[in-house]
């Protein structure tokens, strides 16, 4: 098993599994078979089976995760291209973000509290809707477990990417701008990548939701948690 700990082999495996998972989704057309989700599940199974630790894997995975930051910077391009449109709609965008952010924080904390989660878990859950780097930062500042937050954030993102558009349709939210915005607000960059597949308008509004909810959550989370007597 020593050979499997080689970074290049682990990277090749990650690319290979993701490629296969994407083909699988293309063939079946099932949204549930989200390639990110499938790859994560297969990799975890494989690591458990071969006894390779997460630490070993993450040394290789770090080369992939590294590109997350530049990718978020790159969202500046669609943001610029839609700036005029966004400026014209500033108030609806800002108010819907504020509502989404507060509802997200209060509901996740409230429900976790009612169902008996520990204090650390509640804090780690609070920034669940925002992009990983912000979420981890917010969690750390409040005394949660940042890497648990990272894992939860990806899971929430996958949930939004897989079921988000379905939920919106069921609740008669049909406007493409509103749909994109909601997906980005609720499920950050993973949802945004799904929205980009649907079209650039969806994707741009999703990245807008990702930015604004990220900023608002960073600012409001400590405040909301204090009011709810968690901090």
């Amino acid at each position, binding site marked *: 098993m020593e050979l499997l700990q080689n970074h290049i082999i682990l990277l090749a495996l990650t690319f290979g599994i993701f490629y296969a998972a994407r083909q699988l989704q293309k063939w079946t057309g099932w949204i549930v078979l989200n390639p990110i989700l499938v790859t994560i599940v297969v990799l975890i199974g494989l690591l458990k089976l071969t006894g390779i630790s997460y630490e070993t894997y993450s040394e290789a995975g770090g080369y992939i995760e590294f590109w997350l930051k530049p990718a978020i910077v790159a969202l500046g391009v669609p943001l610029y291209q839609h700036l005029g449109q966004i400026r014209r709609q500033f108030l609806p965008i800002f108010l819907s973000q504020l509502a989404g952010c507060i509802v*997200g924080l209060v509901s996740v904390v409230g429900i976790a509290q009612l169902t008996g*989660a520990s204090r650390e878990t509640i804090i780690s859950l609070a920034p669940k809707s925002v992009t990983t780097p912000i979420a981890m930062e917010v969690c750390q500042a409040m005394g949660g477990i940042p890497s648990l937050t990272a894992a939860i954030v990806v899971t929430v993102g996958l949930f939004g990417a897989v079921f988000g558009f379905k939920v919106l349709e069921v609740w008669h939210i049909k406007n493409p701008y509103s749909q994109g915005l909601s997906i980005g607000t609720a499920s950050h960059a993973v949802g945004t990548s799904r929205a980009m597949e649907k079209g650039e308008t969806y994707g741009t509004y999703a990245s807008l939701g990702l930015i604004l909810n990220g900023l608002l959550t960073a600012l409001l989370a400590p405040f909301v948690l204090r009011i709810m007597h968690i901090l």
Partner: protein
Amino acid sequence: MIRQCFIIFGCLALGELVVWLTGIPIPSSIIGMLLLAALLQMKAIKVEWVKGMSDFLISNMGFFFVPPGVALMLYLDVIKAEFVPIVVATVVSTVLVLIVTGWTHQGLKD
């Protein structure tokens, strides 16, 4: 290609610098994104100068989330012990965020 990399990483580096100088709790990547949009808006750089790289990064963004997602394996115990609170809270809250944001935006837009 080099120019594209320079612009993207340059914005990110400036973001890092801003965070380091001011200590604000906002990730450098978000600052870099806002900076890139601002530079494009001010016509300091042209879209064609970053288009190839930014398209590549954006269309593969989901893939970059695989390694942090694999970190889930470290918390299978915590998740098993608090399965109901974690799952119910995240699912219900995520659905609420989707609906509230969508409704508010759709309602105010018209």
